[in-house]
């Protein structure tokens, strides 16, 4: 068993038994379901809008080399500097070099999951830079020293009392149980940091090839401030974030907001093209983009699952996933949680170590239904299971499948096997069965019927 699987099984078991926490998560998501449905109802045809969104991403991802080249040419024409990173280490080195050249001291960041993927904060802090996460949820998680719980709602699992204690401990503020007051504490604390920071680091939601702009979606205004006040703006983005035209955003931006957070549109959707232009009064002097592969091309090379690169990170699949709601986001042990995380993590980090996430699914398909860009999520979980069984089958896989294959081909063996199974079922109940332990711990085997289905059918249809 891989380490990641052992940790996952332990954490998932503990969390699934925590009824209080599960109820808290369900309650937190309650408002989301209502708002999402209200906003979806404003679409004159949500299903077809999903087609349009899916097609916009499909056409860019399947022509990635050309679209990316176009984006880069236009980005550079706008005065930005492009950096390429094959993996996390290269991306970190690039950003450290920019910070070093700029003799930076303070760095302010707005929410960027790609930076979590490459563990950027650790690297910057080790090199002696002060790094502050400015998104409220990320700020709270940074103070807690914990990874985000949900890649859109990073601290949705933390109760207000805990946040109040955290602020008292780190910021010296008076305790309060008001979410509004807690938000204002963070607002006051972070405002001066934007003004003082030398470098602002953001992610990117879309890279627009036609114009060379990057698009950033956020609710709080922290990304706007991060890209407005510091002298240098660095955006870190996966190479798959590219879209062909500005016009594609007319579908993608509202659908991202509605699917992910139940909003008509996220509060700030901002397009940046280059550093401060001649005649503009503010904005950074330098604008860098770091384009990261980090095994995305491995996923691209799998045509069956290539559509997982269409993901716009809205988080809708997490919000509807019964597994996510029961085991929570931290148990995954991945940068990207929930169904999309279970699909892509084996590609990014290795199938053998991360295939267990694809097994942790009831295959109910709620994720696939929720996905605004129509990623076939629950089938991809099956594809991962199949690929893992093919790549490195366990002894159980081989015994079971060969045995099943043998028995199913002979009607006599099938019938006899069934008879033996029905007769011995009460006995099996009491035996410690291999591979069934986890299942049997909380469940009884069903009572065996006295006759097989085939016998009953014969009797009723003579």
């Amino acid at each position, binding site marked *: 068993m891989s380490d990641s699987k052992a940790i996952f099984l332990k954490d998932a078991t503990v969390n699934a038994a925590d009824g209080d926490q599960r109820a808290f998560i369900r309650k937190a998501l309650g408002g989301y379901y209502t708002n999402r449905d209200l906003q979806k109802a404003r679409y004159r045809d949500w*299903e077809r809008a999903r087609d349009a969104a899916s097609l916009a991403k499909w056409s860019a991802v399947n022509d990635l080399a050309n679209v990316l080249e176009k984006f880069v040419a236009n980005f550079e024409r706008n005065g930005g500097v492009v950096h390429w990173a094959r993996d996390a280490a290269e991306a970190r080195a690039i950003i450290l070099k920019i910070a070093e050249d700029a003799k930076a001291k303070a760095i302010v960041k707005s929410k960027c999951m790609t930076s979590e993927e490459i563990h950027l904060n650790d690297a910057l802090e080790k090199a002696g830079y002060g790094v502050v996460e400015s998104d409220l949820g990320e700020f709270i998680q940074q103070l807690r020293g914990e990874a985000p719980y949900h890649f859109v*709602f990073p601290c949705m699992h933390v109760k207000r009392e805990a946040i109040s204690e955290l602020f008292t401990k780190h910021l010296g503020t008076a305790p309060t149980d008001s979410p*509004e007051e807690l*938000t204002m504490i963070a607002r006051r604390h972070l405002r001066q940091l934007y003004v003082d920071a030398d470098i602002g680091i953001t992610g990117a939601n879309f890279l627009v090839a036609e114009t060379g702009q990057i698009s950033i979606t956020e609710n709080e205004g922290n990304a*706007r401030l991060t890209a407005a006040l510091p002298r240098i703006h660095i955006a870190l983005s996966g190479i798959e974030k590219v879209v062909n*035209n500005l016009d594609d955003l007319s579908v993608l931006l509202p659908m991202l907001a509605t699917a992910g957070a139940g909003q008509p549109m996220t509060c700030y959707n901002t397009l940046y093209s280059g550093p401060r232009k001649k005649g*503009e009064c*503010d*904005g950074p002097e330098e604008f860098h983009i770091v384009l990261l592969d980090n095994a995305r091309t491995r996923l691209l*090379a799998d045509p069956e699952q290539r559509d997982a690169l269409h993901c716009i990170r809205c988080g809708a699949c997490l919000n509807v996933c019964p597994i996510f709601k029961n085991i929570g986001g931290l148990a995954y042990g991945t940068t990207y949680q929930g169904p999309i995380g279970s699909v892509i993590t084996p590609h990014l980090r290795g199938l053998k170590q991360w295939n267990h996430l694809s097994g942790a699914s009831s295959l109910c398909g709620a994720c696939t239904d929720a996905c605004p860009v129509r990623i076939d999520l629950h089938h991809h979980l099956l594809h991962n299971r199949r690929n893992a069984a093919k790549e490195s089958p366990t002894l159980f896989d081989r015994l079971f499948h060969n045995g099943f294959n043998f028995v199913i081909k002979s009607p006599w063996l099938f019938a006899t096997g069934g008879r033996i199974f029905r007769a011995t079922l009460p006995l099996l109940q009491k035996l410690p069965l291999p591979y069934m332990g986890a299942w049997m711990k909380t469940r009884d085997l069903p009572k065996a019927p006295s006759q097989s289905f085939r016998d009953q059918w014969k009797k009723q249809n003579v």
Partner: protein
Amino acid sequence: MSDARSDIFARIREALKVKAPKPHLKTDANPGKTSTVAKPWLPDGGETADASLTILAEQLAKLKAVLIRVPDKAAAAKAVAELSAAKNWKKVAFHGHELLRPVAASLPCETWEADASFDKQRLEGCDAGITTCESIVAQLGSILVSSATSGGRALSVLPHVHVVVAEASQVVPDLGEALALAKARHGDQMPSMLSFITGPSRTGDIERILVLGAHGPKELYLVLVG
């Protein structure tokens, strides 16, 4: 060592040698201009100017943004002055624009044309920022500001209150039209920032409970002339 750029492009080209099937769609629409194809499926932005204004008013109300409709520029100045007095603003920053100078002149407090002598520390101390905008999207209640129309990047987001003064003719039905308009207006010389503002700054990060004014403005006013 070959450089990262050519390595990544080589990997992409290699990966794309095997084609992925086109998504299984419920429609036979051909890829084209996404907004044109998808227009009848997306939320309605209104067929007529009046219909768009009605939708805009509904959307802004839901977003907790305040819409103030006035007949002319003089009335706009008066409305903002009343707001300033009621909210007891001490310092107000504004974008140097012909529509805004008379508004600023009418305010009963200290005013500052922020883009003429930009200073981020001074802007941080302002109670309100007044800007114009590129266009207004009825469909979503979004206001498109840019570094060209809104005194740079920070003026529309750093002060605690954001006031937008615009002409009713700047309202467009949907996002597709707002993007097309920006492209037609600026061509390949886009302002370095274009931002769709949809309501006052907000967060739900604490227990998914909505709080306005996370980092950006707590209040958003749209004063629409005509």
